[in-house]
C-alpha cells in the first residue's frame, strides 16, 4: 500500500540498503536450506580452494566456508538483533517511564545511567564477561545492558519532547495509567527516531560483538560467526588471501546498508517538516 511508494522514491543508497537487509534476513531464515553443508560439519580437507565442490573453499578444519558464511548470517544477525531488541525493551521502556513519571524515578534512573556510561563499554563488557563467562546468553545480556544505557538516554530525550505535548497532558488529566501513557500516547509518537536508533544500535552491537570476538570474548567457536571468522583468518590478509575478507565484507555490507536506510528514514522524517 503506502509503503511501496516511498520505497520507489527512496534514494538509490536506501534502496540498495533495503535490498541487502531483506537478502540477509532471507539468508538467515533459510540458512539450513541454502547451505550445502552443516554449520560445524567437517566435509573435506582444510583450506580447499574455491570452486568445485566447495563454492568458497573450506576453512582450517575443512568445514565449508560458504555454509559457515550462511550460518554466520543467522548466528551473528540473530544475536545482534536479539541484543538490540533486549536493549531497546529495557532501555526504551525505562526511558519512556522516566520521561513520563519524572521526579525521583527520572532522577534515579538518569544518574544510574550516567554512572554506568562513565565506565568504558568495552572494559565493562570485558569485566562482566570474565565474571559470568562467555556464552551466547551472557553475551546478549551484557551487551544489551550496556547498550540499554544509550537507548535510555535517547528514548528519554525523545519521549520528553512528546510528553510536553498537550495530548499527553489530556491523557493524564483523563486519569490514564502508566501503561496507557507509554503504549498509546508516547511510544507511537517516539517510534520514528527510536526505529532509526534501533538501526544504528544494531550496527553498533554488531561491530561490538565482532570486536569482542576479536579479543576472544565474543561468540565462541564452533558456532559460525562473522566476527570470529574474520579474526581467525585476519593474518591471511597480509598474504593477499581474500577469504577472511568475505565475512568482514558481510559485516561491513550489512552495517552500511542499515546505515543507509536509517539515514534515509531520518532524512525523510526531518524533511517532512521543511515546508
Amino acid at each position, binding site marked *: 500500500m503506502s509503503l511501496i511508494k516511498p520505497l520507489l522514491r527512496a534514494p538509490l543508497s536506501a534502496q540498495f540498503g533495503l535490498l541487502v537487509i531483506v537478502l540477509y534476513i532471507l539468508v538467515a531464515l533459510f540458512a539450513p536450506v541454502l547451505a550445502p553443508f552443516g554449520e560445524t560439519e567437517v566435509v573435506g580437507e582444510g583450506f580447499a580452494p574455491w570452486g568445485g565442490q566447495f563454492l568458497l573453499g573450506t576453512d582450517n578444519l575443512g568445514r565449508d566456508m560458504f555454509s559457515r558464511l550462511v550460518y554466520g548470517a543467522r548466528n551473528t544477525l540473530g544475536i545482534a538483533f536479539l541484543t538490540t531488541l533486549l536493549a531497546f525493551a529495557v532501555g526504551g521502556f525505562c526511558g519512556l517511564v522516566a520521561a513520563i513519571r519524572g521526579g525521583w524515578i527520572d532522577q534515579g534512573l538518569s544518574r544510574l545511567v550516567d554512572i554506568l556510561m562513565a565506565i568504558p563499554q568495552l572494559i565493562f563488557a570485558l569485566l562482566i564477561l570474565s565474571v559470568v563467562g562467555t556464552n551466547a546468553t551472557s553475551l546478549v545480556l551484557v551487551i544489551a545492558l550496556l547498550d540499554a544505557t544509550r537507548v535510555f538516554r535517547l528514548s528519554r530525550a525523545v519521549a520528553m519532547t512528546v510528553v510536553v505535548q498537550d495530548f499527553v497532558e489530556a491523557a493524564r488529566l483523563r486519569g490514564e495509567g502508566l501503561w496507557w501513557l507509554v503504549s498509546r500516547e508516547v511510544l507511537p509518537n517516539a517510534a520514528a527516531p527510536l526505529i532509526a536508533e534501533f538501526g544504528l544500535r544494531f550496527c553498533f552491537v554488531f561491530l561490538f560483538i565482532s570486536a569482542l570476538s576479536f579479543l576472544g570474548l565474543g561468540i565462541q567457536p564452533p558456532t559460525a560467526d562473522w566476527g570470529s571468522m574474520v*579474526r581467525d583468518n585476519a593474518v591471511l590478509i597480509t598474504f593477499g588471501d581474500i577469504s577472511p575478507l568475505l565475512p568482514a565484507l558481510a559485516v561491513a555490507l550489512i552495517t552500511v546498508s542499515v546505515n543507509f536506510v536509517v539515514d534515509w528514514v531520518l532524512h525523510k522524517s526531518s524533511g517532512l517538516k521543511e515546508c
Partner: protein
Amino acid sequence: MSDNNNKITQAMHDSGLPRRDFLKYSATAAAIAGAFSLGLPLHGWAEEATPKAGGVLRMGLAGGSTTDSRDPGSWSDTFTFVGFSAVYNTLSEISVDGTAIPELAERWESSPDARIWTFTLRQGVTFHNGKTLDAGDVVASIQHHLGDKSTSAAKTVLGDVAKVQAQGNDAVVFVLHSGNADFAYVVADYHLVIMPAKDGGADWQAGVGTGGYRLKGFEPGVRMDLERSPDYWKAGRAHFASAELLAIADGAARVNALVTGQVDVINKVDLKTVALLKRNPNLVIEETKGAQHYTFPMLTDSQQFQDNNIRLALKHAINRETLLASVLYGYGQIGNDHPIQPGSRFINSALEQRGYDPDKARFYLRQAGVDSLKVRLQASDAAYTGAVDASVLFKEQARQAGIDIDVVREPADGFFSNVWMKQPFTTSFWYSSLTADRMFSIGYAKGAAWNETHWDNARFNQLLNAARGEMNAPLRQEMYNEMQALCRDEGGAIVPLFASSVAARSKRVAHGGLTAPYGELDGLRLIERWWQA
C-alpha cells in the same frame, strides 16, 4: 587462531594449572653426568660461515605479559625465558645434543645413590656490576625458590632438595631427600638463574647477571632491551651488539612485523600461515618438535572410566593422523598414549604405535559388556588452541566405533580450576619435560598434584621410585620402557598428539643449527647463540 586467545588462555590456565616448567627436553642418550670435561662444544658442525659480531637482534615474541616481573620465580612464558636467559647463566646448560653440560659450574659429582650433588664453580666469572661470582651467590639464588614462603614456579622442580650449602668459595652442595640421577638437568632449569647475593637473599630486582647481555630496559608486556656485556666470560657466544624483544600477543601482528622487516624472529607462528610464509624467500621456518603434548584425560576412578576396557575402546576410536593434519597442520607428531615424545632419549622405541581401529574399539566395548557408549567430553580451548575442534573431530571418528561423544564446550576462564581433574572426561595439555622422571612424577604418579587421571598403578609407582635413583642407564631405560607401556595400555590419558613449536626468522639472522629438540628458539637461547647474517 589468534594468539591473543592464547594469551588469555595462558592466563586462565595459570590460575589452576601448574606451570609445568617448560622443561622441554628430549635427547637420545641417557647420559648421567658424573664429571664432564671442561670447555664448551663449538658449533664445529655448523654449515654456516663463521659467526659475525655486531648488529641488532629484534624479536617479536608471544608470551609476554604486563604482569611479568624480574623475579625468576615468576617467569612463566617465552618472553621472560628468552630475555633473561641472555642476562643470566645457570649452573648447567643443555647442549645442542640435549645433554647437560657445565655453564657456571665447571664440573659436578654425585654420591653413588645420587643423593648428594657437588657443583664446582667456574673461576673468574663476574656479574655485570663487577662482583665476582662465588658459592654464596649460588646458594642465595637457589634458596630464592625454596622455603615455605616461596611462591616460585621452580619450587616443585627443587622439591627433592633438602639442603643447599656452600662448600668453600667455589663449590655448592645439594642434599636431596632421595636419589635423583637427573639432577644436573634439574639445575639447568631456566628459573634457576644465578643472581648476586644481597642482604642474605638473591638480588633479583637489579637485573644483574653473569650472562652475555646487560639488561638495559624492561617494560613488562611491552619490550626488553639488552646490550652486549663487553667482558662476557663465555667464548664464541653473544655475537649481537644488542637485542630488542617486543611482546607481540597478536599472531597476525607478529607475522606482519616479520614480513615487513620490523623484527627478525618471531615465535608461535600461526600454523595457517606457515605455508604462505614459506613462499617468502627472505624467511625461514624453524620447527621445534615435541614442545608439548595434548591429552584427553579420563578419570580412572570415575564410574564411567574405571573399566580399562572402556579406556582402551576410546584410545582406539581416535584418528591421530587426521587430528595431526587438521589441528596442527602436520606440525607435530602423533602420540602413543604416553607422555614421552618421539625422539626423546627416553622413548620406548619398541612400543607398537596405536592406530585408529573402530573394530578394536567395539571389541573392547564388548569386553566391558556394552554395545555402545555415550560419554560427555568437556572441552575448552583453554587447554590449547583447537582443543574444541579436536574434540569435535574425535566425536566424528568415535561414532564409527559406536561411541557417542557429547562435546560440551566449557568457558576458558576457570576451566583448569573447575573442570579439569574434576570432570571425568576433559581436554588438557602438557609442556614436555626435560626428563622422563619429571614428566611421570608430576602427571602420573599416585598422589601427584597434577595426576590428571587420578591414576593409581602400583607397578608404575614402584618403577618410578626405582628409576629415579638408578644410576645404571640401561637398567633405568628398561624401567622407563615398561612405564610407557603401562601408560599406553592401562593409563587414563589419551595422548593423541605432540605439537611442534613453530618459529620463523628472517635471513638477516643466522644460526649454526638449532638445539632441537629442546625448547623453542634454539633452547630459548637464540640471543647468545645466533648472529647477524
